[in-house]
């Protein structure tokens, strides 16, 4: 098992390198002039040329790519933002925890609401409960986050004065953003849970468990849900990764300086170093998420655990 984890961790190196090369290439060939962005449209051609030279922008593409990869992966020097001159490592270390808290709380609500909804829908298939849950899921997928965010702010901040409408501070500042951001997750988790549960709930061993007199609650939670978890874990994992890099709308509305706003601002200003490092960090975090998802598979399904272990042993024998 440990060999499997190490192998997966080593795979992250080419993934991060691949992301770095792709992002660097895309951003390099985007139509923009970094010198003009930094100096502003009032700068003369001479000023811009001097700055381009000092930033190495006149060097050949492969020289710049090589410099970037060496600085990032060998020296671990992420550099400074072209636009703000702020240290990128510091900016990311400041912003990542906020995005992480927001992502985890959003995901937690999605899981706590989405999975029970899916279970209720599945055990009441074709009945009122099923229709209500699926209507809720449909609404969750259909409602735009930014629209729901503003409605929540109007209700909880303007009318009821219960929660802060924006900004950062204690955990109370994350409640509205998390609720506004979780609707998609609730919907997809509810639908996935329902379909997985429906497959499992008709299995012979569930009928057997019921025939043996096991309580219905135990049948659902201990026998059915555990066996339906694999696809649900996949959805949770991919959703976590998507949330990490995709919270910029929620962050903008609620004035939360997180990774989403950092990267989107950097893309708009063609702040290449920030976009590159931000993307690499997100790719690595996403790879970690996928690794955790795979490990959770093993935790809930002994067959997969045995498969991972046998993969490791086979490799040892061949070696």
């Amino acid at each position: 098992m440990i060999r499997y984890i190490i192998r997966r961790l080593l795979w992250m190196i080419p993934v991060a390198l691949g992301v770095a090369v792709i992002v660097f290439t895309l951003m390099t060939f985007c139509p923009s002039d970094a010198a003009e962005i930094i100096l502003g449209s009032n700068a003369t051609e001479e000023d811009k040329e001097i700055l381009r030279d000092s930033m190495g922008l006149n060097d050949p593409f492969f020289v710049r790519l090589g410099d970037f990869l060496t600085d990032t992966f060998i020296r671990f020097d992420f550099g400074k933002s072209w636009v703000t001159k702020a240290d990128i490592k510091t900016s990311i270390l400041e912003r990542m925890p906020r995005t992480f808290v927001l992502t985890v709380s959003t995901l937690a609500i999605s899981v706590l609401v989405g999975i029970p909804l899916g279970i209720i829908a599945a055990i009441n298939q074709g009945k009122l409960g099923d229709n209500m849950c699926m209507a809720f899921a449909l609404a969750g997928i259909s409602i735009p986050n930014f629209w729901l965010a503003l409605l929540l702010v109007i209700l909880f901040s303007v009318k009821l004065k219960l929660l802060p409408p924006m900004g950062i501070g204690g955990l109370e500042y994350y409640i509205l953003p998390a609720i506004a951001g979780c609707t998609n997750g609730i919907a997809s988790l509810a639908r996935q849970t329902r379909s997985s549960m429906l497959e499992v709930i008709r299995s012979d061993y569930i009928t057997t468990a019921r025939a043996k007199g096991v309580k219905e609650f135990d049948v659902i939670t201990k026998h059915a849900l555990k066996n339906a978890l694999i696809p649900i874990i996949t959805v949770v994992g991919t959703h976590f990764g998507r949330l990490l890099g995709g919270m910029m709308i929620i962050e903008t509305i609620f004035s939360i300086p997180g990774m989403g706003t950092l990267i989107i601002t950097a893309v708009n200003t063609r702040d290449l170093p920030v976009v590159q490092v931000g993307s690499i960090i997100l790719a690595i975090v996403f790879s970690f998420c996928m690794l955790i998802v795979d490990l959770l598979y093993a935790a809930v399904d002994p067959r997969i655990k045995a498969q991972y272990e046998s993969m490791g042993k086979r490799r040892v024998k061949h070696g």
Partner: protein
Amino acid sequence: MNRKLRAILAMLLVCGMLLGTLAACSGPDDQPDTPTTPSNPDTPGSDGQEPAGSKIIEKLDVGSTTLWETLTPFRNTSAQFSTFVRHIYDRLAVRTVTGEYVPQAAKSWEVADDGVTYHIALYENITDSQGNHITADDIVWIIEENMSRGLKPCFNKVDHVEKTGDYTFDIVMKQNIVDMLPMVLYSTYVFSRAAFEASPDEFATSLVSTSPYEVTDFVAGSHITFTLRDDYWQSEDLIDPALANNVKVLTYHYITEASQQQIGLETGTINAMGSMSATSVQNFEGNDDYVMVNGPSSNGIQLFFSGADSKVVANDVNLRLAICYALDIDGIIAAAYSGYAEPMHDVVPRTNVGYLPKWDNEEYFSYNVDLAKEYLAKSNYNNEELTLLALTSANRLAQMIQSYLGAIGIQLKLNVCDAAQWSSSQTDGNNYDLVLAPIGNGLVNLWSNRFDSNAYANGDATSRKDQTLTDMLYSTWTNEGFTEENIDAVHKYIMDNCYGYGVVLPLVTAVYDAKLNITHAVITDSGDVDMAASIYG
């Protein structure tokens, strides 16, 4: 039964969303039924009259759309004209709303006979919040650092700087250009070299301030809090009223989302919002709980025509005139700016130094469809599709221009792009036929960046090569040549040739809680309200 139930659920869902939409669209409870006209930009007390003494406010929260990511003094021009910059650093001089430069750390400056050497004298008692004494050595080093880092274009106009005494130094400019030295003074943030060199991150996250305030809380991209120092170096009687400090703790919150700006005010999260978006501002019209102050922006929105030979507009003044006369500026102001803009009378905004007030009464391409069609008939236009380059923020304006030109038979394709792409395209006239540009910051600055044929690889900023205009500019923007007569001659030349057209001057609208009881709103050079300097009753 099942289908019926689904239909009922669907109906309920639709009704819920509809109600939600209506709720979200509703403004404040006491919003008037009909919008009123924007309040007069010249609010009582903002006219430069000597204000009475102010009450000191303990704490104030202000919304801002300006992103300030780092406190380092060596940064580009982005956001350097924002209201709160003066709370971060003292400068050598500060520019007021009338375009006048008033001394701050520099006690005085004068130009030598050669027109390029300036003698600067510093106050002798400048200290920062750690007690470091600031001398000419610090300032000379700061200016030299700015020159070598090349982040602010005005420092590239400096030839060299030299210390002449403990508190005096000379700045020698490369060219005799009026208004350039004050811009250097304005762009020079004052701090101690020793404190800067002791900082682990060049003051990026915490700084030692020379300003009346200390930064006591700073989260990049979120907020910045200033607390009034009790050991500020300057004596009260020498502080210009435009730089008064009547608030003890001042926090600026970064809020870009238009609805949240309004909500922030309504919930009391912020007491004031500087430069609120026009769509949200309308919701405060006629609401006595809030005060609106409009100030003209330092940048106008101008339309420039390509001068590249490959473009049909470059050598066809009749086509350019047809385009200018086809635009209904009143309609644009009403529809694209919700009334929060005013017409221009030159490519230079009226707020800029060098603008001649007499231009306000001149005829300036008044909307006339018949005249536009006449010029179009005289032009060489042959149904070619013209391209307009514009920023995403000017999307609505671009669409209106497209419609107006369509009405006289000119086909216009829009190329609306983000700031980065716009910046890389706008100085090459081969990329467009027309370009919308938000430009200002002084008449000389605008001239040199738009009409100097020697400034860019292909000519001026639109790839035009007009040596006559360039020679006029060179002789006008010197200290001796900057006369009303010469300025007017340049204005007429640009108008006659229709090289550019001042479309609108947007108004910057600040909204604040009426309970603050501001009796004198101090407006800054960027059109915003300076909440610290304003007078509280």
